[in-house]
């Protein structure tokens, strides 16, 4: 009997199952209904939202969505977010994998100390170091720049990437390495051609674990970036909400469009997302 069957035919009876089913359905409704209404109100005029909030909209009326895409800097913000998040993840994975590979596969002196050093970084909320970071960035000439954000995000993400990748790379069998070495492969060749292809699942987890908070971050751009053309999507959204305060239809269209990229990705990759985001919390 599998675990699922054991639980599926759990006692507690049909009454309990019915109660739990009602709870799950009610909860999913509370979770999804606001998000659904956000998208629906994007198809309505402000007058319709105020007057008939629950009436089905005219889905052919995409005027609000067109307004967001043509009259605001939506695409600029989106491009900045893609550039900043993409580059940060690339750097986090590269540097994180290098360190993790060194820690996991070579028994050098100070190995444990290096690992603990990164582990300590996991415990530190970098937000609280925002004042020194602000001064450091100013001295490096990286205030009000996308590069400055990338540097901070890479630093923020490295410890967790090292932690996730080290845990995985330690599980790979030593025999693979030895066999490749006997065949005359160099250390670099073994790493790139033998070991890392096997570590792809862990890389996906490490990437998602960091990509979601970076994509969604509002705090660091708020402190570092002033120029509108360099703002990321969450930050740009606040600027644009200030402009259209009274035009609710456009507001909800803007919110919906901002939520769209990550929501679509989540629906496609929900298993990896859930694993990636909860991986810090599971031993």
């Amino acid at each position, binding site marked *: 009997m599998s675990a699922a069957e054991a639980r599926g035919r759990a006692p507690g009876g049909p009454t309990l199952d019915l109660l739990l089913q009602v709870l799950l359905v009610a909860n999913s409704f509370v979770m999804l209904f606001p998000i659904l209404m956000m998208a629906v109100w994007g198809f309505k005029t402000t007058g319709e939202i105020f007057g008939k909030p629950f009436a089905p909209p005219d889905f052919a009326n995409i005027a609000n969505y067109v307004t967001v895409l043509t009259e605001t800097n939506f695409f600029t913000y989106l491009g900045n977010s893609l550039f900043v998040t993409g580059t940060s993840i690339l750097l986090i994975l590269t540097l994180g994998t290098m*360190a993790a590979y060194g820690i996991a596969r070579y028994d050098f002196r100070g190995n444990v100390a290096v690992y603990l050093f990164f582990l300590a970084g996991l415990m530190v909320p970098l937000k*609280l170091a925002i004042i020194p970071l602000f001064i450091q960035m100013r001295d490096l000439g990286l205030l009000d720049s996308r590069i400055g954000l990338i540097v901070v995000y890479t630093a923020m993400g490295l410890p967790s990437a090292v932690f996730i990748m080290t845990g995985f790379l330690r599980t790979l069998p030593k025999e693979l390495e030895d066999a490749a070495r006997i065949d005359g492969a160099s250390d670099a060749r073994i790493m790139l051609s033998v070991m890392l292809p096997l570590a792809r699942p862990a890389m996906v987890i490490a990437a998602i674990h960091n990509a979601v908070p970076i994509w969604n971050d509002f705090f660091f751009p708020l402190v570092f970036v002033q120029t509108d053309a360099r703002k990321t999507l969450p930050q740009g959204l606040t600027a644009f909400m200030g402009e259209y305060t009274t035009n609710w239809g456009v507001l909800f269209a803007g919110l919906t469009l901002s939520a769209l990229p990550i929501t679509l990705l989540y629906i496609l990759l929900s298993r990896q997302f859930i694993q990636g985001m909860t991986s810090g919390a599971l031993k």
Partner: protein
Amino acid sequence: MSADFEWPIGRRLWVAFLVVPPLAFTAAFVVLPILSAFVYAFYHWEGLKRVDFVGLRNFADVLFRDPWAATTWRAFGHNVIVFVSLMAVQNGVGFLLAYALSRQLPGHRFHRVAVFLPVILSSVIVALLWKQFLHPIFGLLNKTLGLVGFGTVTTPWLGLSETALWALIIVNAWHWVGFPTLVFLAGIQRIPPDIIEAARLDGVSEWQLVRRIIWPLVAPSATVTFILLFIGAFNWFELPYLMVGLEGSPYGTTDVLGLYFYRTAFGNQSSGTQDFGHGSALAVLMFLFVAVVSAVWTIRLRRREIEL
């Protein structure tokens, strides 16, 4: 494994090449800023200039001297309320949902995806969305209440001193409840099925099973969930900042340490003064408080965990 002093020079260089750049990067942009924050707190600042060494004065000010201390303790009190409420609502409901999902009822896959959907959205989207939805007249919440016959209880939720903080807490719970749910669910699914089966064969009631077997065995996931919530609740910033503003409106009833720290360090709209000295002192105190409590609490919680 060979000790590294016997390694060829090439391999030693290779390992150094792997480990040194990530170490240097972390040292420069994580360790150095954190250590600097400690140093900065001992100085008096004028704008972006470090002026005089003032010892513990900044710390004494934010803890015991008005006008700083009054705001610090009021904000701290709100953080405590937020933490305790979220512990009950977010983690309580999270565990209940995880237990419900673990019973593999029809549609459980759909419900699992649904409960986690708000978690992947940014605080900015959640904050701005709910700010509109909580609008006193045209907001979705009051419209819905009116629709189901509760028109009399409609309130300007974010505008009243009695309800504003609770509104923020509920929105935060809506945003994050999927996180503890799925961490607990993973914990429940890792319990060996024969333990559950044996208990059921012994005729244990479902309540006893949850209370005496499932909950204690899920303790490791609970430890991490509690600590993460604790860190999150005391570093709370984005949601209140975007929904009630930097001053914690109305009348400071939603002011929390995160807002106060930001106002102190980077100034607010009304007075653009930057005070890096008192700001750093606040940051260091928040860091120490969270670090010490998390460490002590983790050790205590780990003791009651059962190794599977």
